């Protein structure tokens, strides 16, 4: 009985921090070629070319309505692209469904949080583990030994994943009742539970205060270093983007207008005009 809430073992701290070099010798995790989508006559995204290396943190920025979330929806096949190819670990994801793309290695969070609100925090993570810890339906109905074994494993893994954000004590709470920041973190944990090679974060710092954002930045880097995965994030908080993204891509009207490191982007006149704004006019957005 006491075993139920035994402290799970913590997530291992990486022995060395991976130097974020854009190792071109290695296969990129994600490669988009000429990606584009039209809605009726409107071209929402066009000629989107990007390469994300293994364990790279990439940023996608741009003004509202530039098509950033549409890019995420294309990558996860919520929309099927009109043009272009998406290569995930060198494999074309053409014709895959959202669920299949996730199994192939893309996990995401949502701009407007999408949790399973009526279920517990632990169950939310266990649902993320759906394709990692499996057993047939019959074992569940008949409660065969495999059910108990796999459920125990799922319980332990869920608590271990929650411990990334120190949320293991919230495991029993209803997901919908969590405070906003915790809901955002839970979404990230749930995405990580699917064992992705590329994690897409859609405005992870939205609605967070500066200290929460600073903590989130540390955690994003920690996740990258622990799980050795690539992360691509959409964010309006420039301190976060400039602070942790090794490569930044700026989108405006569905077109890439600039790509490069934080310094290059901040100095780019096109980006300043379209998005960042000049220092004289009152500094960077937000």
């Amino acid at each position, binding site marked *: 009985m006491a075993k*139920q*809430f035994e402290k799970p073992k913590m997530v291992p701290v990486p022995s060395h921090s991976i130097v974020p070099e854009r190792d071109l010798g290695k296969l990129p995790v994600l490669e988009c070629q000429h990606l584009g989508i039209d809605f009726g006559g409107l071209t929402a995204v066009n000629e989107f070319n990007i390469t994300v290396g293994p364990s790279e943190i990439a940023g996608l920025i741009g003004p509202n309505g530039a098509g950033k979330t549409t890019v995420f929806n294309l990558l*996860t096949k*919520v929309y099927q692209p009109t043009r272009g190819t998406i290569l995930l670990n060198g494999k074309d994801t053409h014709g895959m*469904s*959202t*669920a*299949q793309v*996730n*199994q192939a290695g893309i*996990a*995401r969070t*949502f701009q407007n949080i*999408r*949790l*399973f*609100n*009526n*279920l*517990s925090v*632990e*169950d939310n993570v*266990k*649902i*993320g583990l*759906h*394709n990692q*810890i*499996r*057993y047939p*339906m019959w*074992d*569940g*109905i*008949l*409660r065969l030994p495999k*059910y108990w074994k*796999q*459920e125990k494993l*799922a319980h332990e893994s869920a608590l271990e994943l929650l411990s990334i954000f120190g949320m293991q004590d919230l*495991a*029993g709470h209803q997901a919908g009742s969590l405070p906003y920041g915790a809901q955002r973190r839970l979404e990230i944990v*749930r*995405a990580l*539970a*699917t064992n992705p090679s590329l994690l897409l974060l859609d405005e992870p710092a939205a609605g967070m205060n500066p200290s929460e954002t600073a903590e989130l930045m540390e955690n994003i880097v920690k996740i990258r270093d622990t799980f050795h995965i690539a992360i691509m994030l959409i964010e309006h908080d420039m301190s976060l983007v400039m602070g942790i993204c090794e490569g930044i891509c700026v989108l405006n009207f569905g077109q890439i207008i600039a790509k490069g490191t934080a310094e290059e982007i901040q100095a780019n006149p096109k980006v300043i005009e379209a998005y960042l704004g000049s220092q004289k006019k009152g500094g960077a957005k937000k």
Partner: protein
Amino acid sequence: MKQLSPSRKKLVNNAVTYGIVIAAYLIIQVLNAGGMVSPSIQGQLVPICAYITMAISLNLVVGFSGELSLGHAGFMSVGAFSGVVVSLSLQEAIPSGPVRLAVAMVVGAVLAGLAGFIVGVPVLRLQGDYLAIVTLAFGEIIKNIINILYVGIDETGLRFSITNEAALGLAAGGRAILKGPMGVTTNVKLSSFTAGFILVLIALTVVLNLVNSRAGRAVMALRDNRIAAESVGIQVTKYKLMAFVTSAVLAGAAGALYAMNYSSLAAKKFDFNTSILVLVFVVLGGLGNIRGSIVAAAFLTVLPEFLRKLNLDQYRMLVYAIVLILVMLATNNETSRIFFASLRSKFLGLFKRKGGAR
């Protein structure tokens, strides 16, 4: 009092549900032995069990999978008539009544599951109101197919027709089992309260265990947020269909049990009204609340009989409707819910103080 962990709370909750069902069975058996159960209630025992099973199974679709199904009686019907056909055609092969009932229920469940699969594949491509309307249509289609179906048996085996009894072309010594709109008229009653009780327990175990497993979580994830569920790699159609078919299987078994309680039965018994009746049980008991479904199904099945006793005769169904409205208002009203919650906490507080004083 120590706060219970959620998984333990769920376990206790489920144990209470099983406890209520078993206790109700034992109490009725004891009362029955003492001759304290009126014949009208006695006659209702098997239908109550069948309706409880129907409510549990529909709750899987409506409460846990979040799809409004208005054709659940259709699957009950498939189970009922296939069960009767199996039972009557195996009369010589299996003389033992309970065994024949079990076989009939299994066959009824399998065929209803098959019907659930055939209906589910197109229906589950839809969502919300559209899905509800299409399930309603399929329920009516099933009713109408059975309404024109003639089944007979002779030494060569089962014979089917959709025109009339003569078209069956039965050899001498053969007999018609299912006679179109007249339905079954020569059924042998096999159902017993114990069989119904076992079926309820099976349905309860299947649904509660399913809901607390990997597949059940996937179903609830799809209900709570379909897009998020897909984004974590859950296949929509597979799990929606799984819940739908499981529900149809249980409904089929309930149908077979129900049919075996009557010597004659026609297809029109399982019409839209029956589907709605079962839906009322589920909604009244609470979506996703299995214990509520059980209590509501039992209560609302007994209520008309009870009202009959009160000599309300022609106002019986009116009172039934009013009681239904009042109960719905009471359970879904914020003020009354707070009132009941405060009553409960007062009661628990009293309990605690007593325990603490000891």
